[in-house]
């Protein structure tokens, strides 16, 4: 056999092997977390808040962290949504005119997208200190919203860009304003993509720990106001794992299962939604 055929065969094997490593590592991560965490997961973990001395092995669960994370991620996503949708709409040609501003915005969003979440956290904490405020739910929500902003906006802009120009032109030729066209034509056509963007950002928000480490605080209670400190799932995992007690560390595995299930659910919902709503799109 020729050398070049052998070379091709060798590289093909290497490529398939690499792909197996990538897919295999995903399965390994999910598999090991489930294998270690599922046996420890109990109803109490899901339905009770942490009791006094929870981190020394006393009873209770992490309901406070689950609810806290949902509050944080929901609040952050809603806040980010209003900013992102505005920016994504504005980056259309009829608003920004394809000008320098939109190129600059895209570059800024890309840089923000690449900014480590610990930097958001440190910045958020600096601002909190400047205003003499303590870590709270609202501070966590704002930092998460900033973290999610570039992710959501870029995802939304990608789909809005794909809306056919003819569709918009039909709307304009009927005398519709830019706002009417954007809300009734563009957003309907882009709906599955917009929802995907929101869900991806939500997933990123609910899983992020470094940004809320100093801004949302940590507590054993479920927050009752925006100015209370709040627990969160990622930090619950981190703190439980950090204790010297094996029983508490095992609860970290169970907490990771809960977080992983939420992430998997988001991922599956994203697929289903985009399949369901793609039916109503004009191709």
């Amino acid at each position: 056999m020729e050398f070049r055929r052998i070379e091709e065969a060798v590289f093909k094997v290497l490529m398939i092997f690499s792909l197996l490593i990538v897919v295999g590592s995903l399965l390994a991560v999910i598999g090991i977390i489930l294998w270690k965490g599922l046996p420890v997961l109990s109803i109490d973990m899901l339905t009770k808040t942490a009791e006094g001395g929870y981190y020394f092995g006393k009873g209770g669960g992490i309901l406070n962290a689950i609810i806290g994370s949902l509050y944080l991620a929901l609040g952050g996503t809603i806040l980010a949504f209003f900013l992102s949708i505005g920016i994504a709409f504005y980056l259309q040609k009829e608003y920004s005119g394809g000008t320098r501003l939109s190129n600059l915005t895209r570059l800024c969003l890309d840089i923000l997208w690449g900014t480590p979440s610990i930097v958001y956290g440190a910045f958020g904490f600096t601002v909190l200190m400047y205003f003499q405020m303590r870590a709270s739910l609202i501070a966590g929500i704002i930092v998460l919203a900033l973290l999610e902003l570039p992710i959501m906006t870029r995802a939304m802009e990608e789909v809005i860009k794909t809306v056919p120009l003819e569709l918009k032109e039909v709307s304009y030729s009927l005398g519709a304003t830019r706002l009417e066209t954007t809300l009734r034509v563009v957003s309907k056509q882009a709906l599955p993509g917009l929802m995907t963007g929101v869900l991806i950002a939500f997933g990123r928000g609910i899983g992020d720990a470094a940004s809320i480490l100093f801004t949302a605080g940590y507590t054993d209670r479920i927050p009752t106001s925006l100015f209370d400190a709040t627990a969160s799932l990622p930090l619950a995992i981190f703190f439980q794992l950090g204790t010297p007690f094996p029983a508490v560390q095992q609860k970290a595995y169970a907490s990771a299962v809960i977080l992983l299930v939420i992430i998997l659910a988001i991922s599956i919902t994203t697929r289903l939604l985009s399949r369901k709503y793609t039916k109503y799109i004009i191709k």
Partner: protein
Amino acid sequence: MNLRILKDKISSRLMLAATVFACLLFFLILIGLYIRASPILSTVPITELLFSEEWSPNAGKFGFLPFIMGTLWVTVLATIIAVPISLLSSIYLSEYAGVHLREAVKPLIDLLAGIPSVVYGLWGVLAVVPFIKNTLAPALGAETIGGYGILAGGIVLSIMVFPIIISVTGEVLRSVSHDLREVSLSLGATKWQTIKHVVLRKARPGIFAAIVLGFSRAFGETMAVLMVVGNVPKVPSSVFDPAYPLPALIANTFGEMMSIPLYDSAILLAALMLLTVVLVFNIIARMVLIKIERGVI
């Protein structure tokens, strides 16, 4: 004025405000961190900050070298592991794999990108650290502190940057025109020769950008690394040594060091260093990608 037009005008202004905010946000972060880091920058010479190994904030010694080297070791190792695996996977997906396989793998790659970093960290503690401690280190005769260290951090991080390198490379490869490939194939080249001499040559700047983006993502990753890397502030000398990367330093010490003078300023300087490096890398990568999109390269 017509109500419809008024609505259009107002909404347009609001959108513009959001857009300007997004542009300003980055500069706000940069300036905010710079102001808070300036006390230490004006007290301690920059050469000492960057090149001194001595880290004892109580004595007023702020040498960042152990942290900078720790970050570099972990990030470079992660990049070395991730690049060949991601590139080969990406080439296979875009050049050889059928539509079905590609469609089946894409959600898995997305999921890999969506898994939170604490979960990766926990996985590292449960799987990678014991593997290094019980199998790899004894086999190679290396000393570790319970398996925690650069190698564990690098392995966990490499998995976290797979998705970004794979997806950016995939986009770049797809942007290489089919005509080019067909010319090469029509001259009798094999598929692999076409990929090696035509596709990859054309895609080289884009692949470079993908690697830079992956590197910069790894550079700032905090929680997963923090959980497996050992956190010892010493300049490492082998992959089995523990390290103490900059993000881990920020996460571990922030919020509790207000009593020591200049300590908080030093930590915010660490954040500023991270931000600056990530900024430079991102701008380089994006410039390359934008040029590719416009068809300049």
